[in-house]
Each structure stands twice: as structure tokens, then as C-alpha cells.
């Protein structure tokens, strides 16, 4: 699709293109800690210094554009450990969660994969493509503590719970779930720290480029007893760490990258000597900083946001996934990405600095994927199985957010269901509403059948978000998905195809998993 749009000149101008889902406008929150002290002078100083530092770090190449400088700086920060220790989780899954066998299984892979998955993975590590992603580290380091904050990995992990419960859980000394839901991961945790739901605290909706607005979500009601704002949960933990570090006289430590961390006075450091502890003041400061960074109009504040509800963005700030839109936000004009490239002729942040579809990396050439090409889905799940399972978002909740809420359950079947075509159901003798078993090579789940002629024959559709404990046996959609990763995702060291936090990395495919459907006797 992108190739077609490119070839026909259908992007970077009004009325054209596709819109990727990207978030931006978060700099006020993202940079709160770095700016050091309250006030917008501090914000302006920080951002000026950041821009200078980025330019200095990339001074060897004066031709780099703002986008390129930003990406390269992010990459360098990852190498230096400056963005915290994010890792592409695929390496952890491979080395420690038991995915190695699945990813090497030829049934799961495209026939154009010439060598074993192991060989590709080892080569990518040996060539240093994933050094900044700590790929090597996760050959040796065994996780001991798991903190889940709103994640619910026992539902979401492509590849299913079984690998996690069999391979990861036994190593863990402590599992903590921070969530507003009582979810399946919470049921497997040592501690649950109940967090306030969206309307029980102050926040803002996802700053998406689809609407280009900062949207304030004000607190409507107090949270129930024992429930805290997630910020307060975090600060509570920091306070305790500080207290225990002092008691144990463990005031400093050096991490694996040689970076020294000081545990003294960390609550004050993280909260600007208590300035940020107040929720309203924190939100007001965030919004005012967003204005200082040029993301919101100059007079923006919590008061203005409360009055208007939504404030339209005026700029992207300095975060890469915002700048990647590469288009100036204009008042009363539809946003179209890439106008810097098409109208201002700014080079693209690719290897060739052009809109690049030809990838002459040796692995892409070997796979015949140097150009976008159609290939049949790989046989993951079991190539001979009758159906292909796809997913989608349900309409009555956002992802899994209120999936077990009694009121919302009453607006549909009130139990997890899978769409199947009427002719397919008839052939298998499956009744509407009946429990069935969905089977792949890696597992099975029980779910009810919902029969509709709008489903393509040979396809079954399971909306994402059903909580595992809503299913008999507690196995859900992810438990029949092998969580397969394509080997070409391991490519690095090639222009724009190299690791940066939250960007290019190996990710699992959950589309068109091959399954069988059987009646439950």
C-alpha cells in the first residue's frame, strides 16, 4: 500500500496518504525529571541544552536534518544507557522463555528462510546489531522481580501464558501487579497495588496525531479506599527504597553498564523537592512546559485546559515519534504527514535519504524481499489446520479495559466469543453460542461460537481483550498464538533499520494463525 502511494505521488499533501498511529505531545511529562527545577525557565534551558547536545553529538555530519539528528541522538542515548534500560523483549523471550524452539520450527517460517533461526539470531548478535538493546545481557541475566503496571502479560503475551508460567515464573522472587483491574496476571502475583481508574485521577487522553489535541481528563470521583493514583504508588515505592537503602547503608550502586546510581534523597530528586507531589500542580506544570516546548499555545495551563477541555497542538516538541510526522501543524488545516519531505524537499531519514522501498541488505536479498512482495502467511499454528484466526478491536470497551465489567458484559454475549462463518459452522455442526475448542500446535482455548455470514469462510475472528479467566481453563487467544518472530526483524546496522528504543526491533506476528475448531464434547 505504501509503495502504491509512493509510486503515485499520493502522500505528503492534503487529501492523500495514510496516517500511522503515533503519539506525541508528551514532552512536558517526558522531560519533567530532566529539567531539574520548577518553572518554565528551567524547561526552556533544558530544551535549549538538549538541542545543543544533540547537534554536538552529531557534529561529524552537518547534513543531518532535525529528524535524523533526533533519531541518532536517541540511538546514542540507548547505547549510553541514557533512556533507562529498555530492551527489545524478543531476546529475553528467546533466551529464557522457551521461544527458541518455536522460532526455529520450519513450519512457522516462510519457505524463503534459508538457514535456521538460531543462525540468523547469532549472526545478528555477533555483528553487534543489537548491542544497545542489551541482547547479550539477556543470555546471562535472570530476571528476579516482575513489576507489571497496567500490562497483564499473562493475557497479552503472544505465545501464551504457559511459556511464561513454566519458564519465567519459577525464577521470579517477587511479582507485583499495579492495575485498576483484577486481571489474570494479578491472580498470579504476590502483591497487587490497586491503582486509580481514569476518572478517579487527573490525566490526559492518548496524544494521538489523529486528533492533534491535548485532551484533559479531570478527576470525576475519588478513588475507592486503599486505591492510589499510579504516580503516588510510584512515589511510595521510591520512598521505601530510599528508606531501606539508608537502613542497609547501601547508598549507591553501579549497574551493568558502569553507570552509578545514588539512592540518597531520591524522593526529593524525583519530585523536585516535593513540588510535583500535588496532582493539580503536576498537571499544571506539565501543560505549561508543553507550552514552553512549543507543543501547546503560550498561555496554556491547567485552568485553560479545564475551561476548553481540549487544546490543539502547535508543534511536535523534540520526541522522535512526533517529529517523524515531518509536517508543520497549521491552525485550521488538516494534518498530513511528510510535507517537510514533499514540499520543503527535506531528505527522508532513511539510508539513501529518499523514500526508500529497495532494501539491499543481504538478508532481504536472500529472502526475495528487497522490494515489498506478497507472500502467503507462514504456517504458524500448524500449516495443515483448517482456519486462520485473526483479531480485531471490540466496540464496547477499549482493549481489555472494562472487559469484565458487569454492565459492559450485558451489552454483548457476556462471555468470550469467536466469530465463525455460517457455512463453516454448519459443516462442523456448531450451534450459535455453543462452547468450542480452538486448537493450534502450541495450545488450545475454549470459547463460544458466534455465527455470522460476514466472516470470510475459513476465517475465525476473536476480538482482543477477553480476560483469560473468562474462558474455561483460563486459556485465551494468545495461548493458541505461537508468538512467531520473523527473522528479518533481526536485521540491524542498515541505515534506518537499526535499533532505537520503541522503534525497529523483532516483534511477534499474531495474524492469520492456523487453527482448528472443534466442538467441546
Amino acid at each position, binding site marked *: 500500500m505504501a509503495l502504491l502511494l509512493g509510486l503515485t505521488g499520493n502522500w505528503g499533501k492534503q487529501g492523500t496518504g495514510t496516517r500511522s498511529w503515533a503519539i506525541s505531545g508528551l514532552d512536558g511529562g517526558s522531560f519533567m525529571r530532566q529539567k531539574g527545577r520548577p518553572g518554565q525557565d528551567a524547561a526552556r534551558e533544558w530544551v535549549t541544552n538538549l538541542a545543543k547536545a544533540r547537534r554536538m553529538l552529531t557534529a561529524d555530519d552537518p547534513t543531518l536534518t532535525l529528524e535524523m539528528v533526533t533519531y541518532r541522538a536517541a540511538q546514542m542515548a540507548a547505547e549510553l544507557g541514557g533512556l533507562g534500560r529498555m530492551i527489545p523483549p524478543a531476546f529475553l523471550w528467546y533466551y529464557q522463555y522457551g521461544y527458541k524452539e518455536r522460532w526455529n520450527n520450519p513450519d512457522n517460517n516462510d519457505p524463503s528462510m534459508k538457514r535456521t533461526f538460531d543462525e540468523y539470531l547469532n549472526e545478528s548478535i555477533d555483528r553487534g546489531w543489537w548491542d544497545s538493546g542489551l541482547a547479550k545481557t539477556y543470555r546471562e541475566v535472570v530476571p528476579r522481580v516482575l513489576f507489571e503496571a497496567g500490562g497483564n502479560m499473562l493475557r497479552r503475551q503472544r505465545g501464551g501464558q504457559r511459556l511464561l508460567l513454566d519458564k519465567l515464573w519459577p525464577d521470579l522472587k517477587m511479582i507485583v501487579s499495579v492495575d485498576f483491574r483484577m486481571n489474570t496476571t494479578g491472580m498470579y502475583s504476590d502483591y497487587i497495588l490497586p491503582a486509580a481508574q481514569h476518572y478517579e485521577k487527573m490525566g490526559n487522553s492518548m496524544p494521538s496525531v489523529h486528533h492533534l489535541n491535548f485532551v484533559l481528563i479531570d478527576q470525576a470521583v475519588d478513588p475507592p479506599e486503599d486505591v492510589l493514583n499510579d504516580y503516588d504508588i510510584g512515589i511510595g515505592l521510591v520512598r521505601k527504597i530510599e528508606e531501606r537503602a539508608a537502613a542497609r547503608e547501601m547508598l549507591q550502586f553501579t549497574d551493568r553498564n558502569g553507570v552509578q546510581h545514588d539512592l540518597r534523597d531520591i524522593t526529593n530528586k524525583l519530585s523536585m523537592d516535593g513540588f510535583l507531589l500535588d496532582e493539580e500542580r503536576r498537571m499544571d506544570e506539565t501543560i505549561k512546559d508543553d507550552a514552553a516546548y512549543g507543543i501547546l499555545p503560550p498561555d496554556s495551563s491547567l485552568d485553560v485546559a479545564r475551561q476548553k477541555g481540549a487544546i490543539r497542538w502547535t508543534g511536535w516538541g523534540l520526541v522522535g515519534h512526533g517529529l517523524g510526522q515531518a509536517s508543520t501543524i497549521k491552525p485550521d488545516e488538516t494534518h498530513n504527514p511528510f510535507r517537510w519531505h514533499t514540499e520543503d524537499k527535506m531528505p527522508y531519514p532513511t539510508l539513501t535519504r529518499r523514500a526508500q522501498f529497495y532494501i539491499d541488505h543481504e538478508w532481504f536479498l536472500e529472502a526475495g524481499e528487497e522490494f515489498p512482495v506478497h507472500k502467503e502467511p507462514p504456517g504458524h499454528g500448524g500449516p495443515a489446520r483448517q482456519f486462520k484466526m485473526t483479531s480485531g478491536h471490540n466496540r464496547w470497551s477499549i482493549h481489555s479495559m472494562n472487559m469484565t465489567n458487569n454492565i459492559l458484559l450485558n*451489552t454483548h454475549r457476556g462471555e468470550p466469543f469467536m466469530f465463525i462463518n455460517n457455512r463453516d459452522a454448519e459443516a462442523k455442526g456448531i450451534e450459535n453460542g455453543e462452547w468450542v475448542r480452538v486448537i493450534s500446535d502450541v495450545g488450545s482455548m475454549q470459547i463460544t461460537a458466534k455465527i*455470522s455470514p*460476514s466472516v470470510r*469462510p475459513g476465517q475465525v475472528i476473536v476480538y482482543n481483550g477477553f480476560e483469560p479467566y473468562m474462558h474455561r481453563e483460563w486459556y485465551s487467544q494468545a495461548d493458541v498464538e505461537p508468538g512467531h518472530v520473523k527473522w528479518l526483524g533481526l536485521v540491524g546496522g542498515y541505515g534506518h533499520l537499526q535499533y532505537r528504543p520503541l522503534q525497529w526491533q523483532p516483534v511477534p506476528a499474531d495474524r492469520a494463525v492456523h487453527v482448528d475448531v472443534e466442538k467441546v464434547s
Partner: protein
Amino acid sequence: MGTITQSKRQLAWVFDLNKCIGCQTCSVACKVLWQQDKGTEHMWWMTVNTQPGRGTPRDYETMGGGYKDGVATPGKLPSPEEFGGGWDYNYDEVLRSGKGRTAHLEKIAGSKTWGPNWDEDEGAGEFPNSYFFYLPRLCNHCTVPGCVEACPNNALSKDPENGLVLRNEDVCQGAQMCAQACPYKKIYFNPSLGISQHCIGCFPRIEQGVAPACVRQCPGRAAWIGFLDDDRGAVSKLVNKWKVALPLHAEWGTKPNVFYVPPLAPVPLNPDGTFNEGGERIPLSYLKSLFGEQVGGAVDTLKAEMDKRRRGEASEVMDILVMYKWEEALGGFDRDPAEIVWSTNGAG
């Protein structure tokens, strides 16, 4: 039996079935506002169903009621099982009993076989020429409300100022004659209070200049409210001037005041995958069975007005249906409910 006193003006709703995405926000807004007390577990005064479908209560279109040639014809009283839903769950057993994976979240109350939106997204036809659309339904606040006439206790009346069908719950004895008379089967029984209950058009909000929750909360800008005689309002223009919004089952004789802009659909595909340009995906005969003979004209008007806009010409109908500003949905009932201090009069 009760007598129908005509009101001076009539409030009406319009729903654009091309814009309704079946998100259930209206249903939930209504449920949370009005039906949270004991005895209301199974009630959904506002529902959104997939058509073609059996709806709620199940097969309500076959249950009778309304008027035939101006004569009231009592219909069937739907059973709780036919309404469906009313589900509660074994949360305690799953989350707190320590039974682990041997207990999953299950219904422990309510219908075993049906729910208010049980046949969602099923529809009709055969792939790839299948079709369905969503139909939001609430009390029609009819101009000839069979329920008012059927009530043996005079508990129901039409509000003289706005035509909403209201119920005096102190007078209602739970005889349920209203529910038999209503052909739309939008009247529920509250076993805790021993009375019937139904949508009152968010009357306390209307009194304060606030639109009903179902309209105000609609994220799809698919719902309008307004007085039918307000010539400048969207409702009147869609219903009276342009005749693109039609009542559901007008043949049931109650003169309903909820109107629907009929759904359009892409043309069907031929067996070779090409477009069947002259074909109907949603059969016109099906639309006629819901909205009467006039639906053909409404569909033609919609298509013609859409074509105008495609040619860059002005179209009042399309401007209204697009709803550039959401306040246009509110028919002047645009006061912010958050500004009002609501008195509960100790009623909770």
C-alpha cells in the same frame, strides 16, 4: 382505562443508521443514569441491536400490540427470558475463593439463552454479500401511545409541554397492561418495586434544558433530539422537510416519535469479484418491512444529496447529517449538566 391527552408540542429523536457504529455508549449512558437500582438489573431502556436480527425482547416484532385500523390490540407480555440479560457474575468465586483455574467467570443470574444484544454483528445474507446495520431503540414517546390507553390505573400520561410519555410510579400498580399494549416492547417490569418502568426521555434533564443522555453522549454524532414543530431544527428538517428520517413500524399505529435515517450499503459483488452496480446489498424490501414504503424515497434523496456534495454543491441534508458542531444534536437542550446542582429529594 387511561385517556390520551395530546400535548402542545412533541419532542422527537432522529438516529442516522449510517453513522451509528453500535458502540453502546447511549445504552450505557442510559443504564448508568437510570437503571442501577435493585430490580432494574435486566432493564435497558436504550438498546442498540443488529439488524436483521431478533432484537430485544427476542422476536419482539412478532409479539403484537399497538393499533389495527385505529383499534387497540393488546399483544404478548414478553417473558424475562425473552428480554434476556440481567446477568451477574461469580466474581467472588473466580477472584477470591482460591479455586484457581477450575472456576471461570460465569453468569450466575439472568437469562440462559438471550441478551439485550445477543445477535450483535450477525445480520443476514451470504459472504461476501452479507449485510447488517445497527438500530438504536428507546421508548418512542408515541403520539398515540397504546400504553397510556391500556393502563387501568391512569399511571401514564403524555407531558403537555413536550409529549414525553411519563409514568407516575406512585400510581402504577404493576398491572403490565402497558407492556402488552406497547408493540415495541420497550416497557420493563421491576420486581422489587412491583411496578413497570420505561424510558422517560430523561425528563428531569429536559426540564433543566439538558438533552437526554443517549443523545448527548453519542460519540458518533448519530443522534438528534428536538421539537417536531421547530422548523429550524435538525429533527424537523430531517423528518418534515427532507423526509429522510422515518419511523420504525409505522403500521403498528402508535405514531412513534423516534425516526431513523435508513442505512445505505456498498453494492454487492458478482461471483467473479466485480461490482454488481445495479444490485442491492441490503434488500429494499427489508428496509420497507421496517420503515414502510417511503423508505425508497428517503434512500433516493440521500443518494442524490450525497452526489451533490461529491460534485461540490451545497446540500442542507448532508450538512445536517455531518453535524459539524455537536451542539446541533441537542435541539436547544444544550445546557451543561455538570453546571446543575441536581436535587435528589431524598429519593437517592
